């Protein structure tokens, strides 16, 4: 728990509570903003107009979407397991929200700093697999089950190179705490010293979010909607929400691990150490937000420009290319670090 306490007049609010609240709200809102952004950007890329009816510039479109989803009929297919069918969509949302706890949004602006934060993130991510698997299983449909199994296999496959890429970051930081990792990049971003790890991590983040070019799970031509073929109403909405939250988290993690977190490049050179705490806080948060927005944009950009892989290509890329590459990258960095120290 962040020990810092913020005193505003007579109120003494612990910083962690503020970060928790703001973080959660931005997580939830990110989905809405991203849906709108995705549509507009897609339209721009495809030379269309995009949503522009609801509100100014179509800004209220996400709200209308949510309302629509809420008012739809909730259908559970026959012979499906009703309870599992209802539980499955909740899992990815919950696991996505849980990751907010360990991420630092600025110097001192974090909810909690636990000893095994990186492993915590991996553990939470690995629990997300249950959502898709169970959704596929509970729907009693061929497409759903195959889609669920495919999604799960793909997610676990890309978790490993991701873990190894993070391991190569930990070699340099010597700590599993995200706060330490963020702090250690005040001079050199990890991207500058470990570019291969960064690239691997980015590819894995794309694959983890199950979006094009890795959206085999819902490859429409083969599997209709994949594991959520049989979902409607808000249950479907929650899978949708989780997908965009994963994009958001992916961007946050890319930023935190490899692109300097809340630091400007080579910040040590020109940011004075005794900067006003409020000013510093605002600077950190805006730098962080900007970077995250950039990566969200990249996610959307890639989705609308790159075609989909075949499933066996995806698996081959994960196991036969990225995993050995990430392990070799790890070993090389470890060797260099060991013999230069």
């Amino acid at each position, binding site marked *: 728990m962040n020990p810092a306490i913020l005193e505003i007049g007579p109120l003494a609010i612990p910083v962690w509570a503020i970060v928790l609240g703001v973080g959660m709200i931005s997580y939830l809102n990110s989905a809405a903003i991203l849906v709108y952004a995705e549509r507009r950007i897609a339209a721009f890329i495809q030379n269309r107009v995009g949503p522009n009816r609801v509100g100014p510039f179509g800004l209220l479109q996400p709200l209308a979407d949510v309302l629509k989803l809420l008012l739809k009929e909730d259908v559970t297919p026959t012979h499906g397991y009703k309870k599992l069918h209802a539980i499955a969509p909740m899992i990815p949302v919950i696991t996505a929200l849980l990751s907010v706890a360990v991420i630092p949004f600025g110097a001192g602006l974090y909810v909690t700093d636990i000893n095994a934060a990186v*492993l915590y993130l991996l*553990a939470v991510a690995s629990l997300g697999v249950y959502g898709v698997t169970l959704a596929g299983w509970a729907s009693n449909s061929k497409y759903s*089950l195959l889609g669920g*199994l495919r999604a799960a296999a793909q997610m676990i496959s890309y978790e490993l190179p991701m873990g190894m890429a993070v391991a190569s970051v930990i070699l340099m930081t010597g700590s599993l705490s995200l706060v330490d990792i963020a702090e250690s990049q005040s001079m050199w971003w990890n991207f500058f010293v470990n570019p291969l790890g960064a690239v691997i991590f980015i590819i894995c983040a794309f694959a983890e979010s199950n979006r094009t070019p890795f959206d085999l799970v819902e490859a429409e031509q083969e599997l209709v909607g994949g594991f959520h073929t049989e979902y409607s109403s808000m249950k479907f909405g929650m899978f949708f929400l989780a997908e965009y939250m994963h994009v958001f988290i992916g961007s946050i993690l890319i930023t935190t691990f490899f692109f300097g977190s809340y630091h400007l490049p080579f910040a040590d050179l020109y940011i004075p150490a005794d900067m006003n705490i409020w000013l510093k806080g605002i600077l950190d948060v805006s730098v962080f937000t900007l970077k995250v927005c950039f990566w969200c944009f990249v996610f959307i950009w890639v989705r609308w420009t790159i075609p989909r892989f075949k499933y066996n290509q995806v698996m081959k890329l994960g196991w036969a290319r990225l995993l050995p590459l990430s392990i070799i990258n790890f070993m090389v960095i470890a060797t260099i670090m060991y013999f230069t120290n």
Partner: protein
Amino acid sequence: MIVYLFILLAVLAIGSALAMVINKNVVNSALFLVINMVSLAGIYLLLNAQFLAVIQILVYAGAIMVLFLFVIMLLNVEDEEKLFDKFRVKYFLAFILGAAVVGQIFYSIAGVTDMLPEISSNMAEIGTVEEAGDVLYTKYLLPFEMTAILLTAAVVGALMVAQYKIKKG
């Protein structure tokens, strides 16, 4: 506070263990086992073993149980129709044996609780990643390398057993 948390987790752990054993549906059983493992991770936290708590979720719930689920789904294992259809000697023996083990272990535990120490004060430092790293690769070097052999052997063996071999020649 901690005591209430402990009771909650304990009830969750034991309840899910029981539910796992008496549930007819295999997928449900597997999910109850996952709940059991997650609540065990919570109990590890109460014991200040923070690193292990995370590992428990990562490896058990996130990897081993996923493998179980995959196999259940691949094989489409059917439900057991009759779990307690009729009285069997086997069930009786099973309960006797289970009760005997519980009784015996309770008895042994009850005999020694006074002698065992209170929770160690330096425990918060012991459960960390750094502490584990310090001994794992020095004192426990041999088991560490044996683990690699064990895992490789398991992978090779499992592949050999699971794949359908077409006879040579």
